[in-house]
């Protein structure tokens, strides 16, 4: 699996892992606008351990996940007291902080980026995405997942029912951090080069969009969102390149900007059309119900 499709599959797999990293806190009602920063923590931790200290790839990957998880945990303990827009701002501020650190620390390569010689292949990343997808599904089918969704809907009542609201939120945020850290490490070893721009705030915005537009009520939402936002821009790249709008289309610059204009328009339309995301519980229920009727 090499070439264009292989590369697409890797991006799709990474985006799926990242979408679930952001989904877990969002499913408890906590918007995370710092997803890419946790990915950066995982990528740089794994990269440094591998490139500078010759640690094995698997050790570096797990270390990246662990460091991102610990930072998420500490951050969650302090900022999950805040709510709504303040939490969004806090995660955003954290992301800016991480970018600042990367740019200013020489060991991390600064603005020039950093080479990571050890390599892992695409199929491993695809397998990781599938395993993570399955684990998140199992978690959401456990009482922990039920508690997360209950907190999302009404945290006061959830607390009155004996659900540990704060612990559940911190745990969901931390697991999300671990997943983002894994995605970061995988990214570093696949592309063999990391730089601060790969984990900028626009990436964090996109991750949150995957999740919100895919839908936060079911475990399928992030999958649909990540797939949509990975595949559709590529389709547009293809379509725009073949449009008869003159040679400018093939110069690359116009190509990219057109893709994002169309993507932005689709985003706005989807927000109007399905404010609760593409995959909703009622929608899914209707779909399954119809299928049952057909069988009968």
């Amino acid at each position: 699996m090499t070439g264009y499709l292989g590369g697409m599959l890797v991006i799709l797999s990474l985006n799926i892992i990242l979408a679930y990293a952001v989904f877990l806190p969002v499913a408890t009602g906590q918007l995370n606008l710092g997803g890419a920063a946790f990915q950066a923590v995982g990528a740089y931790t794994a990269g440094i351990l591998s490139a500078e200290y010759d640690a094995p790839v698997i050790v570096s990957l797990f270390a990246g996940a662990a460091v991102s998880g610990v930072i998420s945990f500490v951050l969650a303990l302090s900022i999950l007291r805040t709510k709504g827009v303040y939490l969004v701002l806090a995660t955003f501020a954290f992301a800016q902080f991480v970018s600042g650190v990367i740019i200013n620390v020489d060991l991390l390569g600064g603005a020039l980026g950093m080479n990571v010689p050890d390599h892992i292949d695409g199929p491993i990343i695809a397998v990781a995405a599938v395993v993570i997808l399955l684990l998140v599904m199992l978690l959401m089918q456990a009482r922990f997942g039920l508690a997360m969704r209950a907190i999302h809907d009404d945290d006061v009542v959830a607390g009155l029912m004996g659900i540990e609201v704060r612990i559940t939120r911190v745990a969901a945020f931390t697991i999300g951090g671990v997943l983002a850290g894994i995605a970061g490490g995988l990214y570093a070893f696949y592309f063999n080069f990391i730089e601060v721009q790969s984990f900028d705030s626009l990436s964090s915005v996109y991750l949150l969009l995957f999740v919100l537009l895919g839908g936060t009520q079911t475990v399928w939402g992030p999958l649909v969102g990540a797939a949509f936002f990975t595949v559709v821009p590529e389709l547009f790249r293809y379509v725009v390149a073949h449009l008869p709008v003159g040679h400018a289309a093939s110069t690359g610059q116009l190509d990219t900007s057109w893709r994002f204009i169309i993507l932005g328009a689709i985003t706005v339309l989807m927000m109007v059309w399905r404010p609760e995301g593409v995959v909703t519980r009622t929608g899914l229920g209707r779909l399954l119900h119809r299928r049952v009727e057909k069988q009968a």
Partner: protein
Amino acid sequence: MSAVPDIALSLRHVSKSFFGLQVVTDVSFDVLRGQRTALIGPNGAGKTTVFNLVSGAFGVDQGEILLDGTNIAPLSPGKRATMGLARSFQNIRLMPHLSVVENVMVGQHARTRGLMDLLTPLWLPRNRVWREEAEAQLRAFGLETYPNEVTANLPYGIRKKIEVVRALMSHPKVLLLDEPAAGLNTRETAELKDFLLDVAERGVTLLVVEHDMSLVRSLCDHTVVLNFGRKIYDGPTAEVQNDPGVLEAYLGPRHDAA
């Protein structure tokens, strides 16, 4: 040997104010174990606030709340739930995106123990009892038609009943119901009464806020009346409508008494 009354829940000199507005003032009363007690009073008397203080949604300013003799006032709402306290809400507060049976299963949360209960999928054999129990309880309430429906789409009367079922799922010792019959029709109210009598029969102590006085009379032997945050009556339900203080609270001061 004098018979010591078996007190399940006791409020001792409980007070609460919001932004300087005194809403509950020095309220004390006992709820006897196995008894069905009504908490009534005009709108704004502080009944729902008393429930919020007992269940822990708000902290008290002053006073103690004893559950089986333990002061629960400093404890978290969740801890109170695990100690055997459950409630329903005047304004229905079901989780809108959860299905009926999932809502009811949230009510079981206070009975979960340890990480295995929390982290293993609910469809595993060891966990199936949770859903089966929830579905059985829904059946007992005639609600088996809707287990997988999202609650946001259901009619008011049905959601009201689901709330009562959810509250029961923690297997509470003391159950607080805030206007459970509001919005129910006569037939549904009669069904609710039978169901609550059945619940009480199984040993659950009931404290019920209710405006439907015929339901109160047929369900509760004991009544506490609040007015402007103060207790004005604490005695048999049968005599509450003859109490001059209660009449005055509901009907206003009588001219000949002035």
